[in-house]
């Protein structure tokens, strides 16, 4: 199992659960998650709309200010406005998260499709390979990659992508196999559809559609992991306004300036929660639409 598989499984569980309460259960949460996701999107695309300032602008004389009217989230050790940095940091975090997800998903699709579509030998080989990768718990695989290629944002992004790939691969493989043996695929054969038609019209769409859910869930996970690497000093470096790096820098001053690490951390948590809630919501909609 990988983190992703667990996430996916939980999403599947929660959307299959009874309709009575649960159907409306996440109503408020979904709304809130949607609003926050919109905020993140705006922050990523046009950060200056939400925070017109320069995230790197220093003002030594107003360093270490606790949250106040002028600086909603307070200022950091060089007097930079934390709100501005958090908003501008969205771009880094989302880009890192999205890139890592694309890498992981891409690799996962290749591996999963190989295993799911080709013969038993390929399936067996790919499966053993994945099993081996699972013996490295997530972060370990990323750390191994970093030790080889050295720390940095690019390495961290690729590392996170790589370490999520096995999870994607297994989900895709399982999904492919389920779809391939589904009754509607047989029904299409009975209707006289060719293998290609079946593949293009039934197997692929039904395999790939859930990937959207996976990607949503995965992006939250990837952001947290990338932030973890930055926090450990192996990813983005200060003064980059990346959330993990901000948190890492802020932790030094945790006893005197809690706001420096609180707000970036809050955004990481909220982003992860939002990804979970939205992922599940999409999943439910896709299943019950």
């Amino acid at each position, binding site marked *: 199992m990988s983190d992703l598989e667990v996430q996916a499984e939980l999403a599947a569980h929660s959307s299959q659960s009874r309709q009575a309460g649960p159907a409306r259960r996440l109503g408020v949460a979904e709304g809130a998650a949607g609003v926050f996701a919109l905020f993140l999107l705006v922050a990523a695309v046009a950060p200056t709309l939400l925070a017109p300032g320069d995230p790197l602008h220093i003002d030594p004389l107003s360093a270490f200010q606790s949250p106040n009217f002028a600086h909603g989230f307070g200022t950091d050790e060089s007097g930079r406005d934390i709100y501005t940095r958090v908003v501008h940091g969205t771009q880094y975090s989302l880009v890192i998260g999205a890139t890592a997800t694309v890498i992981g998903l891409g690799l996962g699709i290749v591996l999963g499709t190989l295993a799911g579509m080709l013969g038993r030998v390929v399936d067996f080989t790919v499966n053993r390979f994945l099993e081996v990768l699972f013996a490295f718990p997530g972060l370990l695989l990323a750390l191994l990659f970093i030790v080889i290629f050295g720390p940095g944002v690019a390495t961290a992004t690729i590392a996170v992508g790589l370490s999520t790939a096995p999870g994607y691969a297994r989900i895709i493989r399982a999904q492919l196999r389920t779809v391939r043996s*589904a009754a509607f695929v047989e*029904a299409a054969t*009975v209707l006289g559809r060719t293998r290609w038609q079946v593949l293009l*019209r039934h197997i692929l769409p039904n395999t790939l559609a859930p990937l959207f859910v996976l990607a949503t869930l995965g992006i939250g996970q990837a952001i947290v992991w990338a932030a973890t690497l930055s926090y450990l000093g192996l990813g983005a470096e200060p003064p980059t306004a990346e959330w993990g790096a901000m948190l890492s820098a802020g932790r030094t001053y945790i006893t005197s300036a809690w706001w420096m690490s609180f707000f970036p951390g809050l955004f990481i948590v909220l982003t992860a929660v939002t990804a979970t809630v939205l992922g599940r919501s999409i999943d439910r909609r896709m299943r019950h639409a």
Partner: protein
Amino acid sequence: MSEVALTVRNLRVVFGAAEPVVHGVSFDIAPGECLAIVGESGSGKSVTARSLLGLAGANAHVTADRLELGGRSVLGLTDRAWRARRGKDVGLVLQDALVSLDPLRPIGREIADSLRLHTTLGAAARVRRVLELIEAVGLPDPELQVRKLSGQLSGGERQRALIAAAIAVEAPLLIADEPTTALDVTVQAQILGLLEQIALAGTAILLISHDLAVVSRIAHRVAVMHDGRLVETGGTAQVLGSPRQEQTRRMVAAIPTDKPRGTRLSLTARPADAPGTTCALSTPFPRESTVVLEAIGLSKSFRRPDGSRQLAVDDVSFALHRGSTLGIVGESGSGKTTTARLLLALLAPEHGEVQVRGQPWSAAGEKTRRGLRASVGAIYQDALGSFDPRWNVAEILTDALGLRHERRAPQTTARLTTLLDEVGLAASALPRRPLELSGGQRQRVGIARALAARPEILICDEPVSSLDVSVQAQVLDLLDDVQREHALSLVFISHDLGVVAHVSDQIAVMRAGRIVESGPARRVFAAPQHPYTAQLLAAVPRLPA
């Protein structure tokens, strides 16, 4: 001990603020008597049964003028008081014991639970009693059985174990909620026999079922339930023999067993049928002697988990004549579905071959076969699973018509509407997804899809087994209609001999992969040659003559 085991007066059950699910139901059961409540799904029969145990549900509001178990009122009991009486004064047997027995506990433990909760017996005494019970419900070798998990038992054995658990403390009343629904006919007969025995021993039995024929076998009295009300109550023979209410009549009519081929089962299936017409005999249709589909010595085996091979289909041969229906009947595991898949060339036979209109079918490559595919359609038991979940009805049917649904022309929509009309669905179904349709509607869409390509042959694999009796009747009638209209040849596969006998011209009886008997439906039904066929036939639930 009271003379009445159960008294129910004006029982009402309401969930939340909605309409009552049960409206003022009243009945009594005497010790040793078996009362059957019969109704379609959603009629409120299960809720009625559960409210007699105080288990109608957390948000259920149960009221009654009188509700007495063994003469003592159970109205307004606290949960604790209910617990003291459940299992002791009233036992419950549910359908499908695979999920009604805890799969993680040996059945001995499950049976002993009631004893643990309601008696002061010591551990050793409990074990002795459990062994007695297992023996009493007719399971062989009790010492071996107690340690088994429900997953290790066959369906019938499980149901017996469940009954043993329910009667462990000799509760004066036993409620059996669809106790035989998932079982093969022969096993069903045995379980009904067991219940009958229990009633004979003096236990009152409340039998809940959707199938009149099943209950008629052992019930002394029948109560027909519809929309939360008992519409008709009386002696079994009287209610079934001369039903007074329309609902009852409809249910009686829907039973296919012993109804000749072509007899309409549903009373309101098609608008064309005049209301009130019962058992309208349809016109006989022409049958030709041309063989359109032939199976020649088919064999197919599968690998078991332990590596050995099991023959699922063993040297099966038959021929399907144009315009006729070949019924294949057999119990679970007899190889019916494998045969269907072989006929559809979804599996390749190990030996033998299938020919369509005399041309190689299973022996041909898929490429060659594809040209013939349009003439062989299929209808599946799980209609929902046979539709791509992303598609709505319009897309499913457009695809089946061989058109591309990206640019749907107005004339396509017209064709879709005609197609739907043919299976008795309105055009309003087009934009809906199968998930939003009822079981009967889904099967109609399935039939429409099969008809879209104008096939000559339809392979129907258990097309009605997951449907209510009345819906089943409608679908069977529909199949009958389309067969006549399109001169279709049908292979109709089912575990239900009654259904098969009703729809088929020819019957093949399968057992363990082999055809043990085949021949014209009437002949096989009237004078079975093979003892197995006779056994099957004897077990078929039928209304008292």
